[in-house]
């Protein structure tokens, strides 16, 4: 249950472990190209259709499930184990899940967009069900009995006469090396034993006892420690660097300089840190950055060249608006703010590069690192090992590239690179700043007649694929240029994610202004544009409800046809005790918000009670009640944990967070200059109600809470103070200024 996965991987690397034996016996690797996959397969099964890319059974009965996704603390590893155990009819503890590794698992791209359950979970679900059917068929053949007379239990096929064949006995001759079929004999949810149960997470015991749980905890034999000296600002050039004195410091193994890429390697970690400080002292940089004026960010964004597209156009000339309002909402750059700065280990041996990374995408990262090193991708292996929670594209991929570049300069030595706090804060790609402009009118019955929504945003993904996305590749002498930004296409969208309202409005127009230029380094952060778009839409819905003189919950329901959405709204309102005409206690406010993430993933509604100190302007979330529908639930407590976390993280973004910078440098470089939620502001309670949908597809839920939580808090602050705040973060000062205005 608490397998030291890092040790296993080391054994695999050494070529002496059980894992590698079983895989080579299996004969097939997840990357093998299929003849022609069956149509209508779930997406991940289509790209990796061999069943033994997902489920392997050894002759001794050992069962392993494989996923190309990376466990980031969301807990899906446990959920996948539940799914495989359920569909295979084996005890939960009898199998193991192996996560993203370019040598072992399918290429499932990035672990992002709340796709893990939807893609990988669904692939494992179907693969496991089909494997069970194959085993039944094989047993029927051997026992010469009709398959209908056989049943499975506890890792074996059992005949009516009591004869029993273990799964291990049945898997000879590559019986599982078959392509998935479109139809899977899935179990009836009413018979589930382990799916739908709050099975404790498999990774938590190691994490609460000091086990090796993170890439930061890896200690390979002969491993050396590297630290980086990053430029002081974007685009700075290293003009002078006399490394002689640093090279003679205690423990220093090497100074690695390649253009503007500067690092030092030492035998002990603190020696590397001291040498890093010394190296920073002798490095002279010419700074070229011209960052925008922070105070003028929204108007600057709206003035930048953009590629505009109308993503929704709907008209019904019969419905004409009478009362109209408009509003502009803004979001600053915000930081992923991982508690553990990025880290990676790399080893270059026998012409092959192995990188252990907390990247969200082992395959794209391998592609980028190979391109940076000008090596064939087949000679680079990237293995995911957990890091600190990332919530999107933080420094993980960059640290992996740093480690690889340094390791190449020190053949055979495993190199561990650990970013410092200020490096993570200054160099991670931030969640992009955004502006939304809304205009709407009400008809004579208090319903929305006309809705206009415009959003200005950069892309929300500059993840590697090309080497130019990696800092190391940008900084090395033969620098690789940052590839041009591309918008993420709908229906998922990037800056326009959730820009199309889920509500039914007779006249509506939604415009996406995609801004290609990126004055500040940005990329994917949990929920992408949905955080700000939902904050805007759901704040504006409250403004419209007030204009119509309607209760906010009632107003939403009046505009929503989606039955599952209506159920989620009703559940959250009921759980909160939401009442029409309610009066909150003095200096408190109630707020409500709802969204379906990407308009195609999980549904989430959040009701909040917020307390506002009128003297200081300080707002505190007192309690939150959420309802979520993510289809068939696999691990209810895991889902609750994700929604609770989403609410608290979004509370932090919404009340406190903004990346700061001057004309050259990022100035929010630690937890004092980039404050986040602390325990004194944690709510008294969060209740999450799940609406389970047995047998329905999994709907990604890791990001669905971000937007609703933000708008629900903003609406509660407006309810408490009578003032509408539209610029994120809803800081103490902004609230105080609004109260005093």
């Amino acid at each position: 249950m608490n397998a030291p996965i890092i040790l296993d991987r080391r054994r695999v690397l050494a070529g002496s472990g059980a894992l590698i034996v079983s895989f080579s016996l299996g004969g097939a690797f997840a990357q093998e190209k299929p003849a022609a996959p069956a149509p209508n397969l779930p997406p991940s099964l289509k790209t990796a259709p061999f069943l033994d890319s997902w489920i392997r059974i050894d002759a001794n009965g050992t069962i392993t499930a494989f996923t190309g996704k990376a466990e980031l603390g969301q807990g899906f590893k446990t959920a996948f184990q539940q799914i495989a155990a359920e569909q295979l009819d084996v005890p939960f503890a009898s199998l193991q899940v192996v996560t993203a590794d370019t040598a072992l698992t399918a290429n499932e791209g990035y672990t992002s967009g709340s796709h893990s359950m939807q893609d990988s979970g669904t692939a494992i679900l179907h693969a496991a069900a089909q494997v069970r059917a194959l085993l039944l068929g094989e047993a029927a053949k051997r026992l010469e009995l009709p398959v209908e007379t056989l049943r499975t239990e506890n890792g074996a096929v059992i005949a009516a006469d009591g004869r029993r064949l273990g799964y291990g006995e049945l898997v000879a001759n590559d019986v599982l090396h078959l392509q998935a079929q479109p139809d899977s004999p899935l179990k009836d949810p009413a018979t589930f034993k382990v799916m739908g149960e709050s099975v404790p997470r498999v990774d938590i015991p190691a994490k609460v006892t000091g086990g090796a749980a993170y890439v930061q905890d890896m200690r390979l034999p002969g491993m050396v420690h590297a630290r980086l000296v990053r430029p002081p600002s974007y685009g700075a050039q290293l003009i002078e660097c006399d490394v002689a004195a640093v090279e003679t410091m205690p423990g220093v193994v090497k100074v690695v300089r390649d253009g503007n890429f500067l690092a030092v390697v030492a035998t002990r970690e603190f020696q590397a840190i001291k040498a890093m400080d010394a190296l920073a002292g002798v490095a002279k940089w010419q700074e070229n950055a011209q960052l925008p004026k922070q105070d003028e960010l929204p108007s600057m964004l709206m003035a930048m060249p953009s590629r505009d597209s109308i993503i929704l156009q709907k008209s019904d000339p019969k419905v004409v608006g009478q009362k109209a309002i408009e509003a502009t909402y803004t979001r600053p750059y915000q930081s992923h703010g991982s508690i553990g700065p990025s880290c990676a280990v790399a080893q270059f041996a026998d012409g092959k590069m192995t990188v252990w990374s907390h990247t969200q995408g082992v395959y794209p990262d391998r592609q980028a690192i190979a391109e940076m090193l000008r090596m064939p991708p087949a000679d680079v292996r990237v293995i995911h090992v957990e890091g600190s929670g990332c919530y999107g594209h933080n420094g993980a991929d960059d640290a992996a590239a740093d480690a690889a570049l340094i390791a190449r300069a020190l053949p055979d030595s495993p190199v561990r690179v650990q970013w410092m706090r200020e490096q993570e804060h200054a160099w991670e790609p931030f969640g992009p700043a955004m502006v939304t402009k809304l205009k709407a009118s009400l008809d004579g019955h208090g319903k929305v007649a006309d809705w206009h929504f415009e959003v200005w945003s950069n892309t929300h993904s500059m993840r590697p694929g090309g080497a130019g996305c990696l800092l190391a590749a940008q900084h090395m002498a033969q620098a690789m240029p940052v590839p041009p930004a591309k918008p993420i296409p709908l229906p998922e969208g990037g800056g326009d994610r959730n820009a199309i309202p889920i509500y039914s409005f007779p006249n509506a127009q939604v415009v996406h202004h995609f801004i290609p230029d990126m004055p500040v380094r940005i990329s994917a952060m949990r929920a992408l544009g949905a955080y700000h778009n939902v904050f805007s839409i759901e704040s504006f819905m409250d403004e419209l409800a007030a204009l119509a003189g309607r209760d906010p919950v009632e107003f939403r329901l009046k505009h929503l046809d989606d039955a599952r959405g209506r159920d989620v709204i009703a559940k959250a309102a009921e759980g909160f005790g939401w009442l029409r005409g309610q009066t909150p206690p003095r200096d408190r406010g109630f707020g409500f918000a709802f969204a379906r993430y990407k308009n195609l993933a999980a549904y989430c509604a959040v009701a909040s009670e917020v307390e506002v100190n009128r003297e200081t302007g300080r707002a505190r979330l007192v309690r939150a009640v959420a309802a979520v529908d993510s289809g068939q639930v696999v691990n209810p407590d895991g889902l609750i944990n994700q929604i609770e976390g989403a609410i608290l993280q979004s509370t932090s973004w919404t009340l406190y967070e903004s990346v700061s910078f001057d004309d050259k440098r990022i100035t929010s470089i630690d937890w004092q200059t980039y404050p986040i939620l602390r325990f004194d502001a944690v709510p008294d309670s969060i209740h999450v109600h799940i609406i389970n949908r047995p047998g329905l597809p999994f709907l990604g839920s890791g990001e669905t809470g971000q937007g609703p939580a933000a708008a629900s808090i903003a609406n509660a602050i407006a309810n408490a103070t009578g003032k509408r705040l539209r610029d994120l973060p809803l800081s103490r000062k902004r609230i105080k200024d609004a109260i005093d205005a």
Partner: protein
Amino acid sequence: MTTLKVNGQEHQIAAEGDTPLLYVLRDELKLNAAKFGCGLGQCGACTVIVDGKAVLSCVTPLLLVEGKQVTTLEGLGTVQAPAPIQRAFMEEQAAQCGYCIAGMMMRAQALLQRNSKPTDAEIRGELALHLCRCGTHTRILRAVRRAAHLMDTAELSPANQESVR
């Protein structure tokens, strides 16, 4: 050489005296629990207990802890025989990525050793410095309360353990 007592064992440490305790624990003694989070004493991920008090190991030089009793999360219990605080965090499933958790647990352990029945405000006050980014705060608070209860009823046999949630 500096003499350091960690989790009841005495060690001779070769590292320079200005080396922060964190790196001695992680690199010399190969202990995983204390984490590097900021190196600035701002986040709490590196917290260990020194002579009964919670200490930020990333800003505590080795020479200041010479001869003192250092306890890390590893010293409290194991997966097989978890200490009450560890059992409580498992039972409450009080982690997502879990990177901050070891530090939280050590701070809470130090609190519970001197105050077996802290109020909610006391727990929050004690953890004020500690940062969690996944948003597991409410679970952490529940786990600390549960740990207080478990420590109070330490004789509770394993057979009487409550199931998770």
